[in-house]
């Protein structure tokens, strides 16, 4: 599962143009990483794409931190 963590951090680093080492599981997209609501939508889209997922909108709203995203992926991604 270290792979998921690494991949998610890489995606967020790319979307927000931040160094990977500035991002941890506890990082909040908005409060810690400076994302706005549109950035957050784009991060979710990139995660859906990378992990072949379709995250329902009601679930998307609950993904606020890097850790939230990793947990969702680990629970729902196809093995």
């Amino acid at each position, binding site marked *: 599962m270290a792979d998921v963590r690494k991949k998610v951090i890489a995606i967020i680093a790319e979307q*927000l*143009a*931040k160094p990977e080492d500035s991002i941890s599981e506890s990082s909040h997209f908005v409060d810690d990483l400076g994302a706005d609501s*549109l950035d957050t*939508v*784009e991060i979710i*889209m990139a995660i859906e794409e990378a992990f072949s997922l*379709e995250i329902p909108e009601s679930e998307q709203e609950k993904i606020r931190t890097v850790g939230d995203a990793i947990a969702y992926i680990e629970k729902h991604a196809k093995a």
Partner: protein
Amino acid sequence: MTRTVQRRRVVITGMGSVNPCGLTVPETWNNLLAGKSGISTIDRFDVTDFACKIAGQVKGFNPDLFIDKKEQKKMDIFIHYALGAAHEAWVDAGFDKVELSKAEREVFGTYIGSGIGGLSTIWDEANGYRGPRRTSPFFIPSLIVNLASGQASIKYGLQGPNSAVATACATGAHAIGDAARLIAFGYADRMMAGGSDSVINQLGVGGFAAMRALSTRNDEPERASRPFDVDRDGFVMAEGAGIVILEEYELAKARGAKIYAEVAGYGMSGDANHITTPAPEGEGGQRVMRAALKDADIAPEQVGYVNMHGTSTPVGDKLECMAIRKVFGDHANRIKVSSSKSMHGHLLGAAGGLETIITAMAVKTGKIPPTINVDNQDPECDIDVTANAAGAFDAEYAMNNGFGFGGTNGCLVLRKV
């Protein structure tokens, strides 16, 4: 209750441009006076199947100098160019060294138009379309016409009027004229105004070529834009931005700002004729020049130089020259005109921005950039077009014309201060 509206004087105190002849105003001005063309073969996409293979491309522009990396991908290239030009104008006006108060920011606005907006973004998004769940949330804000103004207002904290105009190739002239009026009549004290466009892609080039509007002199790119020459065969599309800082005169004077010129008059008119063909005797052009002269409250004889719309199309140039003859009468035998589009090409919505800057430089320095490639001047364009070598004039006023598809016209009269 009665209200007396006092008209205030408006001056240009900062200028910035990104265009095929330069990445700054001084570089551009020097290249134009030297008669250097910025036109070349298109290298943005494969032009094999295109009738037109040439354009005025901006070369060497680095958005990293002006825009945070994370923000760049949320903006079409026309916004990149606008922010590059805006930065130069902002610094040129000295606002990088001044801390504007909240009250001052509330009457400092943005009015940067675009003829087309983010066509490259539309092209890319449509080509890579993978369904509604894969459409970027930044797609719309990166392409809509008013986002050059929106992004500039955010970047510089300008909280006054935030608007944009989209009147095809008259956009830049209209944006500056409209913004100057906002200041003249007290709705703002300062405005960042101009135009930006970049559509050198398959749709942009193919679309204008389908109208037979573009030159196909593909084997001689630098000689393709040849306004007023008998062998002209259409305009050469270009890209870039031209943006000025407009300021109420007393405020500019009080802070010791450098003043390029005063926006003394502004006219608008409609052809009401055809979507792309000007009225048969250039009546729209005549009306717009007369309106600008009237607004400036001057006689035609007081104008020494006209930066023509002069796109190098067979009909457009002829009718604009006819309009000059009608408006200026006998003075048309003495007035000097030129089309800098012969060098930088046609920047569409940015043309009026860049050409207002060129006209302001002409007023300030008395120098006139030439019309290059005039090998055989068309007898139907029989005015002094400053052919092939820079010229000079000695007059208080100069004029800048911008005419757009849809029969929309703008004209600015600039005054030496």
